């Protein structure tokens, strides 16, 4: 037996270190064993709990309308356009961390396009079908339902990219455009998906030739490899460490359910999306054509909000930011949070702060200005805004007495304005 090197200390310390290490190892092994069993059993969890009804359904799409209290008239309508991959309940994962719930709480009327799982029959569905048929029909349904000329749109991830295309082709129907973690300028994309999808290395037409649609497992594999250690070993260790924390475990399995609830992407759409956007960056170059029409970003003149996660490895913020330079809108805003791609929807850090701000941003731009009410000039409007009454609907639901105290405007005058709003509505 050899001597122990001096730098390792004396025998008793080394023995203690070995004992401590082995004890921790065994303890940890038990936690990992429990975590692994939990993973194998996949406990049932509730997702997408905000009540909704289907108001339109066709082929691979259906339009959901979320139930809300009170008069719809006071609620600006917003259509959520979800990505073609995985399920949209990531935007309604659990009460308290639900984008849908927060938007409803802040007074919006929420609709969502729920893309259904395509099968072999749907491999010929094109970007044209998605943008100029499915999204356009849904927008028309909401416009008709709410008797509005234009509505607010919020697109998430690939749904954001599709929404940008839609807004460029049908700008008259879009009141405001919000794009959340949406890949738009792929030349600025520094992420690994962009690198792996480079035309020197990846040939999307081979995927569709071999499979018809792009399999969900193929996309899942790519996402897993964006952070291979954290998405495998790191995830298990994290669960093992928090295996006693019920809230953590529940959230963990909601996320697991979502991650494994993938869906194929129709072959034609997948192939064109990768080639025209990831490989040739045609959208911001204004060279993209859909259904024979050029997607001209200079048509995007409505207010635009970009939402991005600072640590998003799937859609790095740089691939969204420069979009603003390519459009005609002079009312643009960027909201960036210190989270990743999914964190924008589910992180406790962003609920309700970020989504409250988003709702307010939309409401301010959706409504007629306060000065459109007879008797309210710039001066009064300023006082009202300082008292957090930013829109006509805010004023209509405000308490005249309370508002009078806050603004110094007489209660009688405020009541008169409220009566005028009511009269206009009748």
């Amino acid at each position, binding site marked *: 037996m050899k001597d122990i090197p001096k730098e390792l200390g004396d025998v008793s310390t080394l023995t203690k270190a070995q004992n*401590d290490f082995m004890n921790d190892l065994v303890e940890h092994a038990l936690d990992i064993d429990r975590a692994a*069993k939990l993973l194998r059993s996949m406990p049932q969890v509730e997702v997408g709990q905000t009540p909704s009804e289907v108001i339109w359904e066709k082929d691979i799409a259906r339009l959901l309308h979320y139930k809300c209290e009170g008069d719809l008239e006071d609620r600006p309508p917003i259509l959520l356009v979800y990505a073609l991959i995985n399920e949209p309940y990531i935007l309604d994962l659990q009460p308290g961390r639900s984008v849908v719930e927060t938007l409803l709480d802040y007074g919006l009327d929420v609709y969502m396009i729920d893309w259904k799982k395509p099968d072999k029959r749907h491999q010929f569905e094109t970007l044209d079908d998605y943008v100029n048929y499915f999204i356009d*029909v849904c927008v028309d349904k909401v416009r008709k339902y709410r008797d509005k000329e234009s509505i607010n749109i919020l697109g998430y991830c690939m749904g954001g990219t599709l929404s940008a295309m839609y807004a460029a082709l049908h700008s008259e129907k879009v009141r405001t455009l919000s794009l959340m973690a949406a890949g738009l300028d792929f030349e600025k994309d520094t992420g690994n998906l962009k690198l792996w999808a480079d035309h*020197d290395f*990846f040939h999307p037409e081979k995927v569709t030739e071999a499979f018809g649609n792009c399999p969900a497992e193929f996309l899942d594999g790519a996402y897993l490899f964006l952070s291979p250690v954290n998405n495998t070993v790191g995830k298990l260790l994290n669960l093992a460490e928090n295996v006693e924390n019920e809230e953590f475990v529940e959230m963990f399995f909601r996320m697991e359910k979502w991650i494994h609830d993938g869906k194929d992407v129709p072959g034609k759409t997948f192939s064109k999306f990768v080639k025209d956007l990831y490989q040739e960056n045609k959208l911001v170059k204004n060279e993209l054509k859909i259904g024979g029409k050029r997607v001209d970003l200079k048509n995007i003149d409505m207010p635009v909000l970009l939402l991005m996660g600072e640590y998003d490895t799937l859609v790095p913020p740089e691939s969204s930011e420069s979009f603003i330079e390519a459009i005609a809108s002079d009312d643009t805003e960027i909201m960036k949070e210190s989270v990743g791609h999914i964190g924008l929807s589910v992180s406790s850090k962003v609920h309700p702060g970020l989504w409250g701000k988003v709702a307010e941003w939309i409401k301010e731009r959706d409504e007629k200005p306060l000065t459109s009410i007879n008797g309210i000039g710039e001066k009064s409007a300023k006082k009202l805004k300082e008292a957090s009454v930013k829109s006509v609907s805010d004023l209509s639901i405000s308490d005249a007495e309370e508002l009078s105290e806050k603004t110094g405007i007489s209660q009688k005058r405020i009541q008169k304005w409220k009566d005028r709003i009511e009269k206009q509505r009748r």
Partner: protein
Amino acid sequence: MEEDVSYEDLREQFVSAWEKFYEEMEEYMEELENQNAEIYEEMYKQWREYTDNISSQQKAIDGLESYASMTEMFNNWVKISQNFRDMVEENIEGDLPPNFKNIYSDYMDNVRDVLTDAINQTLEKQRKEQENLYDLWIDAWSQMAGEEEEVPQIFKIVQENWMDSYSNLFNIWQEGLQEEKTEDLFKKSQNEMIKSASEAMQELISSEPYAQLQGSYIDNILDTKITQQELMNTYLESMSLPSREDMLKIYESIHELTSRVREVERRLDDLPIEE
């Protein structure tokens, strides 16, 4: 949900699993009669020696030394790769279908480029006594990847990062032992390994050589599937059965018809409703 197990249960399971493994390995070894039998036997002995060293929990230095036997194991793995390569090469000289042969030729060309030098050097070099774990790993790497200048830069960086993590790990232990703070050595060691592995992998997957490797791997799989489909198409056509190509034509027609129906429906929706 399954019940939690106690420490005793876990230990019992662990010991019986190893005993079973040893038994099965012994049975397996007896059955091996092919050209790799000797190599497997040698590997088995070394693996046994290695695990015995670890499980007897002797002094840390003994544990480190046992890693030296890993070099021998590694040499044997490389030899198996060489045998496999030779076997496939022999076979592709035969009468395999042309597409299959092409795919495999491409694949084996790639493999050969990477492995040939490594294999030659590995077999030529005699195992030498290692001063410490770091040197052993570096040596293993140079044997695997050939001369230093031939190693793609990114793999070299990744390897160096990984090596650094062992150095950090050693420092963590040394510091813990010197300061007699040994309670959280496990946690610190684990965190260091995860951090290093994550950084090394991140560096690797963000590199062009990796993207190229992944791309050619995916291409190989897809080409194989496409070739299978072509063969199946030929077979189904010869049997007068509908093939994938026939189905695709039908799906395409359905899509065209569906698009027309959608258009008609939209026009109907736009018509004013007469009272």
